[in-house]
């Protein structure tokens, strides 16, 4: 009896143990292009939803003079979005930082509809402001260089070997509510905390106010310098900031201005 059971098990194993030898037909392993008409049942399900979407999304907000795409180290699209956000909050923020991953499509040349902006910025992310000190600001710059560039506005940065140099536009130097002076930051760092060298009359303890998305402020994309910072919500979604700007400007454009540069010492 015992022996018979053993035989049954062994047979079962032989049947289920496949050799790994199989043929992968290499001629078949290529892309084929198929042109298809739309399936009518699927189309009929989509139609009522499409009517609802079109009524809202086909509104033309502005005209773009150029096609804007994202990219590294800087890009037309990244500069466009961060510049317009900073412009809307230039009284309460010094610089603006976003992420390439958050820009989900391109803006084509010509008419820009509300739907185009939704495709660019589908997320419900809101704008927030956090304060960084000079050392933390260099952590941010280093992060941007490590990522080969992320969208930012309000700064000009370059790296040479392991050193980073940054300069800002005029930043209001405040004490409480009163403005003490308005000067740009010019500073350099070659790594290591003691080595931050600040050329301008700004103290190391001076706080730079960074406008960014709540996604990044809450730990998205591992921007660790934002960890545990107080966040000031400005009460506007990034998408709405772009929509507001487009509606007010009629014509939009962008340019690359060399705000981030990497020099190699030969």
């Amino acid at each position, binding site marked *: 009896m015992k022996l018979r059971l*053993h035989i049954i*098990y*062994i047979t079962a*194993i*032989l*049947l*289920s*143990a*496949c*050799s*790994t*030898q*199989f*043929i*992968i*037909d290499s001629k*078949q*392993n*290529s*892309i*084929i*292009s*198929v*042109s*298809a*008409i*739309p*399936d009518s*049942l*699927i*189309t009929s*399900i*989509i139609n009522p*939803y*499409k009517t*609802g*979407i079109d009524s*809202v*999304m086909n509104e033309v907000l502005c005209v773009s003079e150029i096609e804007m795409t994202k990219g590294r180290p800087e890009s037309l699209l990244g500069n466009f979005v961060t510049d317009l956000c900073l412009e809307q909050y230039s009284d309460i923020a010094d610089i603006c930082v976003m992420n390439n991953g958050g820009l*989900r499509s*391109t803006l*084509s040349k010509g008419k820009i509809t509300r*739907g185009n902006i*939704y*495709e660019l910025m*589908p*997320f*419900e992310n809101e704008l927030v402001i956090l304060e960084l000190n000079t050392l933390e600001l260099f952590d941010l710059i280093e992060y941007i260089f490590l990522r080969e560039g992320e969208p930012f506005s309000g700064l000009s940065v370059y790296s040479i070997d392991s050193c980073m140099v940054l300069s800002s536009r005029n930043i209001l130097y405040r004490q409480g509510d009163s403005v003490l002076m308005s000067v740009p930051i010019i500073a350099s760092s070659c790594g290591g905390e003691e080595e931050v060298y600040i050329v301008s009359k700004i103290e190391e303890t001076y706080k730079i106010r960074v406008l960014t998305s*709540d*996604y990044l402020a*809450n*730990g*998205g*994309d*591992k921007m660790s310098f934002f960890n545990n910072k107080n966040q000031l919500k400005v009460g506007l979604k990034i998408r709405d900031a772009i929509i507001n700007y487009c509606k007010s400007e009629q014509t939009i454009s962008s340019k690359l201005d060399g705000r981030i540069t990497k020099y190699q010492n030969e």
Partner: protein
Amino acid sequence: MNSRREFIKRAALGTAAMSIIPSKAFSNTSELKQLTILHTNDMHSHIHPFESGRNKGVGGIAQRATIIKQIRDEGNQVLLLDAGDIFQGTPYFNIYGGELEFKLMSEMGYDASTIGNHDFDNGLDGLVRQLPHAKFPFIVSNYDFSDTLMDDNYLKYKVFNRGGIKIGIFGIGIELEGLVPKKLYGNTLYQNPIDKSNYYSDLLKNSLGCDLIICLSHLGFKYNTKKVSDKMLASQTKNIDLIIGGHTHTFLNKPVIVENLEGKNVQIAQVGYAGINIGRIDYFLNQKMCVKKINSTAIFVKKKTK
């Protein structure tokens, strides 16, 4: 039960010595069964073909449905699968929250999907609210949802039977911390993808006797860092035949082959995003349910213009 599994293990060792049996005895090429796997990933709420840019006229769910119907009409067994990130990318998601995406996938006969990071974009409640529109299961093996609204709404694995072929499917999700805001994923616990893959692929293969093991993964194809990817998963596990991947929006015209822990081949497939391509993998199995041949194609979906 334990002693039986022990015995099977020992018996399996015995088969190595018995491999003198000619392989011809196991391959009757004239009677191969065909199983067609169709797969998509990172649809990102793309309903219509692209209207502008370099992808103009490409993709479209209604176009994809026509192609899938044509493939079904070939008469073979079909499994239609998705690797997550169904949500987020067009106003259809912003306004209708994924309802249309799930309805259309159900109508097209999707058999299963895993959960991508963007499927959390309206929170767990936003996902759960849309589940009544999905007539297919969500399979994810390394998220513990037991302390969340998703608790009774997902599967750790599922066995499909297609014409006598048993296909075991499990799912692997990406680490959520740093990728998805905590308030959206709530008390979802992320668990080690490699441990869970080994556990579920062993269960599906050796305890449930599946002929093919497929992992629906939203880990991403590969990274230059130590971050776990499909390539890493393939090489550090056993028993997986095919990983259908997503997240990195990688366009593979054919699956990439990686050796697993036992030196066996694992196929990794991924077809970009937005429904631009449909992945097609045809398995040909003999009567003993052994894979004898695999054909793979990426189908580039285009709008027919007159």
